[in-house]
């Protein structure tokens, strides 16, 4: 029933218009326009590549490390972008919330969809890099969509929670900025996980759903030499912890958002 509501004709039309508006407005007044959504991660990649691969030799021993690195950055960027955009989305659309009765979640979903579209464009760049780097097509690549769904669900749960909390506490945006900064380094994005020799630390890092998802994605399409949660956590009682965290985040996010949504109009 909930799904029926989500895909009802009215809501689909509204979602479409909101996403389209987002896209039209995002790069307004910039010369390169949409190209920035591809250029940004590429430039970021270039910097990290020069510093960590060329200077610090981080990727030694990992096949196709540039692609490995780029994939990590792109997946992480998606999560970071979606959560930070969604965080402010409800407040930014305060005029709508206060004057129109539309389902509140549509606002968060619409900002998540624009991040998702951006992400899919970025994946095309990753594919081009794979061809240039002569990465062999792996059969496990078929699993990639599943991994991406997991990332989306995790980001969505987080987004719903953050967007609702931000209405009440404007501190949330600063806190989240710091959390994401820290998480960027605690997730094996710029360094291969194999550089961490302490197994306990490896396990701890892989409890993070983002670490697990990024490693799985690398395993699926870049190289089977990637250390994944499946390897490191295998046989332990907490081996499904990352997936459980994703699920709890979604359920908690939806619950909190629903509870708060009734009062958005007066709290904004």
């Amino acid at each position, binding site marked *: 029933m909930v799904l029926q509501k989500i895909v009802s004709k009215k809501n689909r039309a*509204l979602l479409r218009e909101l996403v389209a508006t987002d896209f039209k407005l995002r790069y307004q007044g910039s010369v390169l326009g949409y190209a920035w959504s591809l250029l940004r991660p590429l430039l970021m990649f270039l910097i990290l590549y020069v510093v960590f691969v060329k200077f610090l030799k981080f990727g030694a021993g990992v096949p196709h490390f540039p692609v490995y690195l780029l994939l990590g950055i792109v997946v992480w960027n998606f999560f970071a972008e979606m959560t930070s955009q969604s965080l402010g989305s409800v407040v930014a659309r305060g005029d709508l919330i206060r004057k129109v009765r539309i389902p509140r979640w549509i606002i968060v979903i619409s900002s998540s969809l624009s991040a998702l579209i951006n992400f899919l464009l970025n994946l095309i760049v990753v594919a081009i890099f794979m061809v240039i780097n002569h990465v062999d097509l792996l059969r496990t690549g078929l699993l990639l969509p599943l991994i991406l769904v997991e990332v989306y669900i995790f980001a969505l749960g987080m987004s719903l929670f953050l967007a609702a909390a931000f209405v009440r506490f404007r501190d949330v945006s600063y806190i989240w900025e710091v959390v994401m900064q820290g998480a960027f380094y605690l997730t094996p994005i710029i360094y291969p996980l194999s550089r961490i020799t302490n197994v306990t630390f490896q396990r701890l890092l892989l409890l993070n759903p983002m670490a697990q998802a990024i490693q799985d994605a690398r395993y699926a399409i870049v190289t089977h030499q990637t250390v994944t949660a499946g390897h490191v956590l295998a046989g332990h009682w907490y081996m499904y912890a990352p997936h459980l965290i994703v699920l709890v985040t979604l359920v908690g996010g939806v619950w909190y958002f629903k509870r708060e949504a009734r009062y958005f109009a007066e709290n904004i």
Partner: protein
Amino acid sequence: MAEQYIAIRVHQVSKAFRLPHEKTTSIKSAIVNFYKRRSFERQQVLRDISFEIKKGEFFGIVGRNGSGKSTLLKLLAGIYTPDKGAVQVNGSLTPFIELGVGFNPELTGRENVFLNGALLGFSRKEMAAMYGDIVKFAELERFMDQKLKNYSSGMQVRLAFSIAVRAQSDVLLIDEVLAVGDAAFQQKCFDYFDRLKEERRTIVFVSHDMEAVKKYCNRAVLISDGEMIRLGDPQEIAEDYRQLNDTSIDAYTAAENATKQSDLTISLRDAQGRVKARFAYDQELTVRLTWPAHKTVKHAGIALYTSGGVNVFATNTFIDKTAKVKGHSIEYHVRLPLGEGRYYVMAGTFLDTKKDIVDFIVHGPEFSMSPEPVPSGEGLVRLTHKWE
């Protein structure tokens, strides 16, 4: 009443807002207060409101500013959740309570039409089919590919209105639409109301304009300080509303008259010299200006404005050369051929030229004009007339 005839049922609805106390003035108190729970002031906006709106009814919600009528409308629209009681709506409801919600200045007129349409619940296809009509009705054919920020406010309202009238829902909520736009636009609004009434659609209409309420509404409710004062006949509601306004205007004006603004005092009196704030058609108004004896004043000026800020009449002793200012007061007598409504006085005192201002009061005391007896017609002034 049988369920199938009810469009909206409001049952014992109460609503309060929590206003946080934000009086953190120093770092120390900020630190001390950090550990305390934030304190709130509860502001009760609506108390125990109950009424039913029948299908096909044109229902008015009337009340002064801050009486809670807009909150009530937002509760009906489902934008706010009631603290107590319930609002039940049978059938679909336009989710709008204002024109042009969601309009984005950075988008073109065309893009805004589609966005606004989606908020009304139309698909892109349906909007595409209506697009031509909407643009034509708004008379904006040449401007649709321009950004909305380049539109005048009148153009924006016209565009918003021509989208809003497409709404197909069973119940329409309309908040103060008539407050904006020029006379031609207001006429369009009234034509639209006529059409809605003919179609027997259910309308909830919030307004200050008692003439419109009397003309269109089948029934109305009067809200004051969050409570229902009266429910029923629009004529009686309009009369109650007028009395409610007068008592507060008189209280307000008396207070205003007593307090001196700058060194100039303005008082409003009738022909008998009694302080008054309410006048009948064509009655004489006396405006008395007084200033301290030590101040030199050579000229004075007085202007009458409608509460909306439209100048009704202005004159001064520079224009009326025969008028002489002597001593420390002057009286100005004028007849008021004005229609119902609220007005205020602007006054100033000068030395030899209009540039040498001694004292100036931009928004002086207010007064109101009675509704009757007034010559029929429309416009700022009501002139006695006859046809032959």
